[in-house]
């Protein structure tokens, strides 16, 4: 009854349980990814509407383009290019918008975006070409500094 060293180290057991959980979670994440991809490809091409606002940051009122028709699966960049001229740079992390309708990001202000959902306004965490716009979704472009980023009023 002396070979308990292996068992007495509770962290080995914790590590094994966490490993099991991580494997199961990873497999299920992969499953839902493929299900999502499959569903996206099935609904892609169907027409949906979305609301886009553009705030140029110079004190002017936000320009609203409500009920803009786009194809399902379109990204925020697709939606924006449909209604405005967009200058952007592509990189590994996605498209970075330099200017909208000729208004460039400058002086520490950048083109940032917010999305409205049932939880309220959410700051755009990903590049606009990585964000798929949903049915009747409202998205607003704001020219503002990161430090001053506030939800649209």
């Amino acid at each position, binding site marked *: *009854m*002396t*070979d*308990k060293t*292996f*068992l*007495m180290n*509770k962290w080995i*057991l914790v590590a*094994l*349980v966490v*490993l*099991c959980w991580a*494997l*199961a979670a990873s*497999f*299920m994440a*992969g*499953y839902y*990814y*493929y299900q999502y991809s499959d569903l996206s490809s099935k609904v892609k091409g169907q027409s949906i509407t979305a609301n886009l606002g553009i705030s140029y940051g110079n004190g002017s009122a936000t320009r609203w383009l409500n009920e803009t028709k786009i194809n399902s699966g379109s990204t925020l960049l697709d939606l924006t290019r449909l209604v405005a001229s967009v200058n952007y740079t592509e990189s590994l992390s996605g498209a970075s918008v330099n200017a909208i309708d000729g208004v460039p990001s400058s002086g520490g202000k950048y083109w940032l975006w917010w999305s409205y959902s049932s939880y309220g306004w959410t700051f755009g965490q990903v590049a606009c070409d990585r964000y798929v716009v949903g049915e009747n979704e409202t998205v607003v472009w704001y020219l503002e500094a990161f430090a001053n980023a506030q939800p649209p009023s």
Partner: protein
Amino acid sequence: MNTVKIALIATFCALSIGTDYALVGVPNVKLMDLIVFLGGFLFGSVVGSSIGIVSWLIYGSINPYGFEPRIWVATMLVESVYGITGGLLRKALGSTSLSSERLRLSILFATMGFLPTVLYDLITNIVYASVYNSPIIVAIFLGAPFAVLHEGANFLIFGVCSVPTIVALRKLRKDDR
């Protein structure tokens, strides 16, 4: 190999095959894996893996879900991983008494039910994909709900049943440590 051991091995094979047919209506929840593992733990890896191979040799050839030779051979061979795990775990635990530290042992056995099942599901999904010309990655991930059910079920079955069964069988063999 004495007669008691041969009789126990034959009983293990019969039990694993019988429980598999009995649980045919419950996909991916089976006692066969536990029985093969217990065989390996009690009699060593060679005997344990033999129980797995023989069990699948019979169950796979008269399989209610159908018969495909390549999948049959793969499952037959991969089932032996439980027997090998059982044998290796017996060596790793050495002379540890199963009567003490039951909670820790149960958690350990639960994970030893889960991890070989991941390997089993991965290999059988890969073989299944290659037999039916499906993309391997897609087959692995689209089969995930069944695989996770199999792994979760084995986690629970091994965790709950292993220690009491081993203690009881050791008493039967009159060599309880």
